[in-house]
């Protein structure tokens, strides 16, 4: 178990990796598509809501130190609930891996390998993440300490280097399609913080449980800032019509960057960093999926689970026929899964578990964590 424990900064990097990768993908485009010129205000608004939700989660988790949502579900509703919640989050993880893998591989195919079958690109990714998963969670989390700053810098660089190309008038009207669209229906843009899902599984991996709130809020804050940067870049750079192009929006923004006559096309460098970033994200997501599977099936030391989950992800990733379907899955299905499962179900479980915990505490006047959960924590 000690090999799975990570420090605070590693934990922030892990959560950031999950969130930032969606920014690199089609997330900003999707936000702009929903709220048009009101996107900047909308992003600030949803970031604030995300802060509140994450703060709430961290407070609710305080009653269950070192336990993840599966252990808490078991406490709340026994093994059956643990299995149901585990299966839901497992499906979410597998779905996310598959969609992200397919989406990014299709983009790479368009940019670099027009004659290469997308399966080959996907296989190379999968081989790498399976190998890295064999090295363990600590190695993956630590590698994020090297890669996350580079990826954040790439987004910052695109934001700063495009200053000359911005059309500031594009932020108007400030509320875009109106206040209702920006603040009410725009709440659905909370899916930008889909990484919250992994916050539910982080506690058993933390060396310092007491810093959970700090870790979660820092990760949300940093990803909010970078989400704002990327949305601003895209909004000020492209007319709304262009931003609906089926390719990485930040890649398009990177193509605008020029340094004199010599460096005119730096976009490949950015894609290079994003490839690494995507590999980081996929490997972490695969780890969490494997971890959930092992927990709900009580298989702790099996070697074939990683291969099995990877094969399922590969199979599912091949289901969408084209980019349009992938885009639909990303912008609609994925969005509502996050809203329902991650924010709705996750928070619901935590609230009810806390209520049960309080009731039992009042009844017995002492800690009521189930013995098995405590033994899990110790192991």
């Amino acid at each position: 178990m000690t090999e799975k424990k990570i420090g605070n900064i590693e934990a922030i990097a892990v959560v950031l990796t999950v969130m930032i990768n969606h920014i690199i993908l089609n997330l900003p485009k999707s936000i702009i598509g929903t709220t048009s010129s009101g996107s900047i205000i909308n992003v600030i608004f949803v970031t604030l809501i995300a802060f509140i939700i994450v703060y709430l989660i961290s407070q609710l988790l305080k009653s269950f130190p070192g336990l993840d949502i599966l252990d808490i579900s078991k406490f709340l509703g026994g093994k059956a609930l643990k299995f149901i919640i585990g299966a839901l989050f497992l499906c979410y993880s597998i779905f996310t891996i598959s969609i992200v893998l397919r989406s990014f591989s299709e983009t790479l195919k368009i940019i670099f390998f027009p004659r290469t079958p997308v399966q080959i690109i996907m296989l190379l990714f999968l081989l790498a993440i399976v190998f890295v998963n064999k090295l363990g969670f600590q190695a993956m989390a630590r590698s994020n300490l090297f890669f996350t700053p580079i990826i954040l810098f790439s987004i910052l660089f695109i934001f700063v280097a495009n200053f000359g190309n911005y059309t500031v008038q594009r932020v108007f009207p400030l509320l875009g399609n109106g206040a209702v669209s920006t603040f009410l229906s725009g709440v659905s843009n909370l899916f930008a913080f889909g990484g919250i899902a992994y916050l539910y599984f982080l506690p058993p991996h933390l060396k310092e449980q007491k810093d959970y709130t700090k870790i979660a809020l820092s990760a949300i804050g940093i990803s909010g800032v970078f989400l704002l940067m990327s949305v601003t870049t895209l909004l000020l750079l492209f007319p709304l019509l262009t931003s609906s192009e089926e390719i990485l929006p930040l890649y398009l923004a990177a193509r605008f960057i020029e340094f004199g006559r010599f460096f005119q096309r730096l976009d490949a460098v950015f894609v290079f960093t994003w490839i690494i970033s995507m590999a980081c994200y996929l490997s972490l997501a695969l780890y969490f999926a494997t971890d959930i599977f092992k927990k709900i099936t009580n298989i702790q030391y099996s070697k074939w689970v990683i291969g099995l989950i990877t094969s399922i992800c590969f199979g599912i990733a091949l289901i969408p026929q084209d980019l349009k379907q992938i885009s639909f899955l990303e912008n609609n299905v994925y969005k509502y899964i996050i809203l329902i499962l991650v924010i709705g179900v996750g928070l619901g479980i935590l609230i009810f578990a806390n209520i049960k915990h309080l009731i039992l505490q009042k009844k017995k006047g002492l800690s009521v964590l189930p013995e098995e959960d405590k033994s899990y924590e110790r192991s």
Partner: protein
Amino acid sequence: MENNSKSFSEKLTNQLNNFFNKSTQNEYHFDLPDDNSNSSSVSNNLSLEQMQENEKISEVKNIFPSLEVSIEYIKVKYNTLINSDIILREFTLSVRNRQYKALLLFIDGMADSKLINDNVLHPLMLRNRANIYDGDQEQVVSEGVANNITVRRVKKFNLENYIMSNLLPQNNVKKVDTFSAAFNGVNMGNCVLFVDTIPFAFDIDVKGFKQREVSTPNNEIIIQGPQEAFVENIRTNTSLLRRIVNSENLVIENVEVGKLSKTKCTICYMSNIASSDLIAEVRYRINNLEIDSLLSSGELEQLIEENYTCSIPQVLMTERPDKATKYLYGGRVVVLVNGNPYALILPATLTDFISSPEDTNLRFQFANFLKILRLLAIGITLLLPGLYVAITDFHQELLPTELLFSILSSRENVPFPIIFEILVMEISFELIREAGLRVPSPIGPTIGIVGALVLGQAAVSASIVSPILIIIVAITAIASFAIPDFAFGFHLRLMRFAFILLGYIAGFFGVGIGLFVYVCILCSLKSFGVPYTAPYAPITGVGENGFIVNPMWRREKRADFLDPKRKTSQDHISMKWKYK
């Protein structure tokens, strides 16, 4: 008549045979028997276990009180009928009018003859003659007077003590009671004295074999700093450390490795700085090596590192006592192996392989500049050829138009694909490097010049490779030489081929995936329990012990990932003359 005709016909046949046929010679052939074939040798038919069992049976542990028996045993063990350099000097030792048979055992060439003559044989054989007095006299241990009565505490005569304290004017004499200990001493260059009736022997330090003088380092050259290097002799090396460390807290533990070679190794550490757990772990690993022989620190390194499958070095090696001392004071453990001029420093992290022993001697600005250069060198060595292949094959848009035209025009006449070109040049470079190392030193530079200039120029003229590729390979080669640690540089040179292939297969995608996996492997490694990528991953004391060298006055803390006993290495205000 009949006989004559017969002999004539035989002669004729022989002559004809000699003329037409190849003469049959009895050629000598020698083949070692296969594992499966039946060998006439009894010992070859025995299994290892049986041999070890037999050895145990014939092994005698304790020294016999009878010298005759001991001599016979020594003769058998050392094969004195065959071995020419084993000297058994039998003589008579006269003590207190009594005569004892004695034997001096040593190896010619290992022990100092003059020391043996002057300090061992002379006092035992000659000076002792004048030492004849009454055999009943007893040794007075202490004397006191009480009520005008003298009370003496006497001790009965003891031959062993007498020899030890009166007859051996040698500074390092040990009593050994087993044959194995005695033979160890003899094998190390000592002489061993056996005396009849005494059931143990005297191991007398008279080492006198030829050894290399302490000279300047060959492979870790620095401009500012000491110019001494370790040598092959372990005692000289420990003395070099002692001289620089200059503290009684330096502990030098002896360990023997190798069932047959019994190679002496020393575990050196500062008892008041190094973590006890770390010391125990080093001791545990070295003491648990079941091998027949250990001949170098390189072999020991491979036996004690955590991950033996990957080529990344996890233990630091140095030939510089000053560097070893610096790490000792930092809380690390240094291991020396007899017969090898390289010390192992444990544990090692990635940043250690980028550091030069000179870094702390230089002003921090210079040191940091050099460190950044080295980091650049690592990047170039590892990635440049791979990135070149990736860019020229997949990402031409990244290059400015003029540069792209220049590359394309230079490759116009080259008939081979880029991967072939670069592999040919990289392998050629490795060949030149290897040949330059192996040939006698006067020819070495010639090989380099012929290889680098003539061959490169000829390859370009013959349109086998493009000039731009020569530049890439040359920059990579120069960068690889800027990496201070040989093993780490070698590892990067090896990994470069993997990145070339990845760049060729999938361009930036391949290189990116390769880099991701590579960094994850680095992050998964541990050296004696310390994360290889510390202090950056996990982040711990980066400001104090990171990649960047702090000014001398700010090097306050020791690396906390080593869990040292003394956390700080200097006061918060070290320059008390300036700031009170």
